[in-house]
């Protein structure tokens, strides 16, 4: 899967298989190529630039999205324990991380949510104790 995210301006994309139908995406959109199919959607998370800015911002963000953004930013698999999946949307996190190491980020989320973090193989899981 490849993605193109546009912050300012416009980008024209054509797929190699179908050069006659270019698509144009503008600021605030992203295009995803999955199995040679181009699809356009909104940016979703505001943290797509965190790799550059070092900032992770969550504003009433559901915990599963928080886990995804942290996974992307720190290149570590972070997920929710299966028992928590159902209530992931209810747990909404408001936090602001500025160039903080992963262990501090996890510690702060543990504190606000009252959850614990367990490591299994190469994945970190949020669990309820």
């Amino acid at each position: 899967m490849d993605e193109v995210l546009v912050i300012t301006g416009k980008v024209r994309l054509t797929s190699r298989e179908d050069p006659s139908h270019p698509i144009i995406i503008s600021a605030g959109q992203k295009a995803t190529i999955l199995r040679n199919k181009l699809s356009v959607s909104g940016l979703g998370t505001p943290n797509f630039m965190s790799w550059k800015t070092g900032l992770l911002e969550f504003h009433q963000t559901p915990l599963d999205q928080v886990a995804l953004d942290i996974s992307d930013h720190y290149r570590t698999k972070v997920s929710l324990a299966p028992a928590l999946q159902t209530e992931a949307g209810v747990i909404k996190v408001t936090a602001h991380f500025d160039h903080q190491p992963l262990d501090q980020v996890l510690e702060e989320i543990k504190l606000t949510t009252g959850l614990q973090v367990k490591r299994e193989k190469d994945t970190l899981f949020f669990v309820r104790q």
Partner: protein
Amino acid sequence: MRIRLLYSLFIFYFLLSAIRLPAQKRSMLYRPFRTHLQKGTIKEFLDEINAVSGVQIEYASVSFQDSRIISPASETLTLGALLQQVLSGEKVKAIEKNDKIILVPSTLPLAGDALLPRYSFFGMVGEEGSREPLHDAVIYEPATHRAAITNAYGYFSMLLPEGRHQLEISYAGYATRRLEVELHWDLRNDISMPRKEYIPEVIVTAGDGIKKNAIDKILPGQYDAYNNFSEKMTHCARSSFFPA
């Protein structure tokens, strides 16, 4: 000459900056902050703090009912005082970590003054007119049972949470003073105590309950409210010096 003056001025400012450093380490709850909201949900108040105050508050929606509507009862001047009103009664604790305030779910509701900044209330207690310091005068807050006692110089100091306090200052033989203070910073307040104009007469009489058969050993003419005890003592002393 001018260079030396500049040099000493430089040293002076350097020292001044060294003195001010610890003050900056004070809790984030002491930061001055005024809300522009008169009424709003807990979430709206927290959003405003996060956007405007420069202090980040982190929380999860599971910790408390963030849609509860709050209208602060009194005007607050610091972040701590505002948070205290906004989170009043919620089962939450505030922890300061990594330069942020983190709201942690708790089993107990937030205590009435947990987030309030504390200030020093201090001063001298002296007699009205003469200004003679009063040692061991009591400064007492009936509502919270907090108290302080003056030292030999009449000085007292106590830490009180931000807000209005009603205090009583008392000293034997002096009229009790009542004082209302509003703390938003460290406050000095010297108190002068008026002497009681009229102290009713008190008669102290010796009881004879504790002494065993005391009456039997005293001759009738010796009995007196004040000297029966000492008479007995001298009698005993005499008998040991001149054994019979």
